[in-house]
């Protein structure tokens, strides 16, 4: 407790109450550290206290003090304190009075003594006259004006009267009397003083302040201090009654007058955000009866956006009911702002960190992807290089002296080789297109040839009873400039797609010139183009006059459609014309397949998307094909659309612009036709004919264009069943196993359909290979047929292990007009027979791995049972186990007992009897001669 002694106060002062603030006033009082002001310095003196912000409803205060416990208690304390003080004063006064009366008594006593002395003439001693202090030293009062001990008031006591005269002399007595008189005088004087003092004291008592005054003073002082402390604090203190009406408010920066606040509620005073909340909060405190703190942001017209930390405590009546709330609010807007800023910063940092992490992840992934892509590229390259070798060798081979069949085969080989190269490039292409680095080639090519090649290739690997057809309108130029590889890729892709999803009917390509589309971009991939299709068709039907003259198509069309006639003239004309013109060619790839459901249209051209999981399982494929097609078409400045009717078929249409270089048309044409004249006769027709037909079962006929639209009747199952059947029957690569098992039940009869799943575009290569093998077999026959004009498409299998014998035998059969397939042992012979059917087998008897006798037995066993089980038992690795059971027609074919002629060396082990016993039909002696061979062949191949 700060009751420091004033420096000018006597040290020995033992004052009960020294502080202006009652020491034991109350606990609340202790919260104020009040310095006791010194007599000569009032620290509050210099402070101007602005009382303005203090707006008090005094009546309410009275009520509060009267009715609230707290107020009551506080008041009681004050009163108690005052009472105590008064009691103290009373005590002091009493003491003083006692003293005074005591002195009085003493004085009386003395008087009597003196009188007595005087009476007995004998004056005793001078008497002990004690000085009387009118004020007890305890009599110090609370305030400065409290009575102080006055030293000067104290009469010297114990003074011994010294008389020099002789005792009992007159002088002595005289002196003594005088002395006593003086004493009496002094005593009277003192009495007078005392009376005065008493009077003064009474006056001062009267002057003493009333308790109320005193309390007010105390309160005022506290108030002053409070004001001093609070004068600059951003604090609002208030009291509200239970109706939330303000009864008191302290606000250092008042914006409203007293009359605007007292008796009103928050809501009545302010409007804006937070006001309601604060009122509700206060109400809540009022209801709960528990103090609480809350941060509330106000957005009011009065003081703008400010955040207050509000402390609200309930005020209870004596009965314990809440009668209002005290509230204290501190403005913490800046702090909140800072805090929010910090939070924001922290959040930003967190976000930054998250971003960083994400970025790192992305970088990692990108690196991974790049590595993967790099690997893919490397792999593709690795595959591409040897394949390029194959293709270029084939190309070189094509420049050598070949007969027609060989040339045809080479063409298919080249086609297929190119295709595989494309496929390997596909993935790279796709990423190239996506990254925009794809470059398009611009080379001259012949649309008809492309269509024909595509159909040919498709026909070659066709496993279904489908008609493949191609129609190239007359107005399509002979040669155009474009990226033929890409265009063929698109066509091949679409065709194989069409075949894949078509089980019966036909698949075809229509090629015709259309006017330049007004806006390529208008044609979204999803947009159906039926209208367009009919429109274009009409245009073509009506002739070329309708074609948009803007792109010089009419001339172009004239040129191209008159090619049959005086082409040279046209060429001369066209040479005069611009070097390059643009022609828009529309290509429809249609089928009569299962169609595309409406809902799948939107995802049709997306990568890795197929119509459904079902489709993927049933038809296979990566789902890349259409995406690549679309991207390629768009890259070339065209558009790809699709229209489809479920269960009836689909038509994929792409329209592309091509440059036409008319100047060089004729030269190339001549050159090329020269070249082709070496090839089959059909090429001359091809140049102008735009109709290609590959009817079912004669698919793969390399001369089909010769028939020019004439649909040949299905070939009988008899011997005339030529190599194409073999081709179809030839075992497919493993990819077909799935197809076989999946679709075997779908087939509408006919052996081939059991393996009807057309291999996915990715699998074309092996099929193509297969096709080439078988094609080579059959075409050899074709060749001999052409050369020797004995159109025997006989297939002969030579089973012989001796290279020289093979060479000789081959040469001989060739000279006799037959081509032969050669295998080098019995097991291979069995496999070859499983793969294909033959009209004659020339079988060496003594061979490694499996001799001719055993092979013959196995073949005969198959012919009888229709199953290769025996062969499998004998350890021959059959290519596909499922195949034998499905190729029923082939079974019928091969069950026609194939003649097997043994080639014996006339030794004991190769006796003729043994040959017959093992199922051989005949034998020729080795070394075979032309004569013996000729006889043999003539005998079995009529």
């Amino acid at each position: 407790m700060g009751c420091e002694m004033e420096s000018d106060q006597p040290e020995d002062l033992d004052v009960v109450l020294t502080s202006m603030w009652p020491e034991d006033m109350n606990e609340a009082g202790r919260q104020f550290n009040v310095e006791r002001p010194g007599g000569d310095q009032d620290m509050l003196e210099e402070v101007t206290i602005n009382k303005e912000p203090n707006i008090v409803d005094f009546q309410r205060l009275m009520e509060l003090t009267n009715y609230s416990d707290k107020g009551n208690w506080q008041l009681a304390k004050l009163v108690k304190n005052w009472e105590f003080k008064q009691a103290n004063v009373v005590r002091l006064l009493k003491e003083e009075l006692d003293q005074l009366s005591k002195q009085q008594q003493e004085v009386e006593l003395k008087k009597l003594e003196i009188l007595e002395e005087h009476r007995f003439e004998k004056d005793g001693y001078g008497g002990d006259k004690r000085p009387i202090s009118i004020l007890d030293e305890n009599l110090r009062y609370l305030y400065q004006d409290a009575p102080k001990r006055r030293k000067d008031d104290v009469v010297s006591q114990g003074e011994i009267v010294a008389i020099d005269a002789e005792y009992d002399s007159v002088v002595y007595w005289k002196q003594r009397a005088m002395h006593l008189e003086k004493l009496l005088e002094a005593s009277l004087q003192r009495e007078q003083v005392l009376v005065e003092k008493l009077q003064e004291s009474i006056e001062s008592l009267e002057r003493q302040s009333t308790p109320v005054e005193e309390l007010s003073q105390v309160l005022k002082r506290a108030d002053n201090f409070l004001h001093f402390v609070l004068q600059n604090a951003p604090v609002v203190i208030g009291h509200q009654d239970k109706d939330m009406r303000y009864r008191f408010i302290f606000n250092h920066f008042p914006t409203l007058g007293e009359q605007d606040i007292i008796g009103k509620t928050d809501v009545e005073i302010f409007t804006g955000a937070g006001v309601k909340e604060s009122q509700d909060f206060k109400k809540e405190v009022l209801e709960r009866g528990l103090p609480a703190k809350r941060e509330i942001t106000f957005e009011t017209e009065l003081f703008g956006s400010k955040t207050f930390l509000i402390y609200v405590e309930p005020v209870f009546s004596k009965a314990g009911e809440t009668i209002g709330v005290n509230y204290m609010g501190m403005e913490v807007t800046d702090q909140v702002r800072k805090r929010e800023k910090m939070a924001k910063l922290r959040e930003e940092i967190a976000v930054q960190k998250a971003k960083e992490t994400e970025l790192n992840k992305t970088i990692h992934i990108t690196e991974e992807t790049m590595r993967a892509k790099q690997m893919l590229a490397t792999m593709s390259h690795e595959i591409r290089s040897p394949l390029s070798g194959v293709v270029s060798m084939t190309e070189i081979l094509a420049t050598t002296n070949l007969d027609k069949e060989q040339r045809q085969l080479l063409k298919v080989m080249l086609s297929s080789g190119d295709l595989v190269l494309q496929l390997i490039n596909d993935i790279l292409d796709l990423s190239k297109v996506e990254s925009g680095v794809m470059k398009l080639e611009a080379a001259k090519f012949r649309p008809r040839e492309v269509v024909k090649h595509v159909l040919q290739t498709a026909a070659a690997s066709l496993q279904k009873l489908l008609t493949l057809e191609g129609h190239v309108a007359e107005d399509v130029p002979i040669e155009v400039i474009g990226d033929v590889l890409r265009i063929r890729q698109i066509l091949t892709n679409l065709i194989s797609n069409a075949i894949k999803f078509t089980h019966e009917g036909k698949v075809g390509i229509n090629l015709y010139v259309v006017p330049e589309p007004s806006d390529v971009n208008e044609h979204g991939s999803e947009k159906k183009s039926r209208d367009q299709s009919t429109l274009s068709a009409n245009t073509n039907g009506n002739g070329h006059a309708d074609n948009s003259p803007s792109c010089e198509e009419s001339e172009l069309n004239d040129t191209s459609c008159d090619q049959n006639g005086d082409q040279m003239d046209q060429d001369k004309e066209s040479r005069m014309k611009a070097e390059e013109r643009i022609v828009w060619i529309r290509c429809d790839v249609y089928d009569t397949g299962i169609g595309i459901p409406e809902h799948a249209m939107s995802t049709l051209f997306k990568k890795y998307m197929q119509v459904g999981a079902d489709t993927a399982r049933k038809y296979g494929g990566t789902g890349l094909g259409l995406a690549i097609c679309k991207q390629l078409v768009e890259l070339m400045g065209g558009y790809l659309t699709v229209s489809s009717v479920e269960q009836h078929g689909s038509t994929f249409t792409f329209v592309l612009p091509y440059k036409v270089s008319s100047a060089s048309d004729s030269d190339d044409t001549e050159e090329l036709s020269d070249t082709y004249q070496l090839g089959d006769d059909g090429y001359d027709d091809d140049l102008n004919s735009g109709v290609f037909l590959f009817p079912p079962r004669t698919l793969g006929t390399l001369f089909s264009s010769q028939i020019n639209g004439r649909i040949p009747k299905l070939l009988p199952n008899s011997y005339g069943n030529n190599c194409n059947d073999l081709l179809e029957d030839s075992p497919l690569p493993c990819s077909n196993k799935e197809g076989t098992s999946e679709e075997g039940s779908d087939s509408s009869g006919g052996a081939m359909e059991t393996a009807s799943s057309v291999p996915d575009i990715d699998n074309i290569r092996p099929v193509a290979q297969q096709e080439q093998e078988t094609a080579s077999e059959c075409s050899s026959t074709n060749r001999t047929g052409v050369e020797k004009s004995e159109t025997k498409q006989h297939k002969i299998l030579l089973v012989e292990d001796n290279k020289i014998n093979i060479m000789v035998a081959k040469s001989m059969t060739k000279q006799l007009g037959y081509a032969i397939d050669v295998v080098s042992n019995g097991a291979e012979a069995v496999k070859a027979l499983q793969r294909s059917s033959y009209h004659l087998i020339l079988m060496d008897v003594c061979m490694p791995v499996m001799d001719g006798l055993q092979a013959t037995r196995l073949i005969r066993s198959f012919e009888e049972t229709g199953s290769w089980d025996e062969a499998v038992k004998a350890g021959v690795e059959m290519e596909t186990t499922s195949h034998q059971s499905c190729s029923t027609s082939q079974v019928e074919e091969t069950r026609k007992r194939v003649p097997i002629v043994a080639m014996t060396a006339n030794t004991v082990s190769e006796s003729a009897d043994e040959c017959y016993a093992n199922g051989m039909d005949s034998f020729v002696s080795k070394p075979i001669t032309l004569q013996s061979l000729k006889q043999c062949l003539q005998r079995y191949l009529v």
Partner: protein
Amino acid sequence: MEIVGQLQKQFVDFSTSLYGEGFLDEQYLQLQKLQDESNPDFVCEVVSLFFDDSEKLLNNLATALQQQVVDFKQVDAHVHQFKGSSSSIGAQRVKNMCVAFRNFCEEKNLDGCLRCLQQLNHEYFLVKNKLETLFRLERQIVEAGGTVPVIVA
């Protein structure tokens, strides 16, 4: 022209002697029949192939017969091959030697086989020499501008 005539005569004489001495038989004539414009070097090609093949077989035979345990079955297979190819080109004496060789194989007569191998070697190089001479003569005739006479046995 005189040189051509001489060469032609030499060729005919040499050929006749080859047939006469049994080095070649009619099968060789078969080969010659197979040779035409589309296959102008057919005989030469076949015979070259025969040479390569034979030399390999002779090596194999020598190796096979030097084994501690001789696999006669394998030896027989080689000889069979040799017999087949020699008979195909009409190298009659080689073929005959092969027949004898096979008999020894069946008997598993190592001594006989070794003897046969030696003789086979001899016969083979003999016929090789003869054929090479024959081809040289042919070439010379062609180079000299003449045509190779057709020998009819």
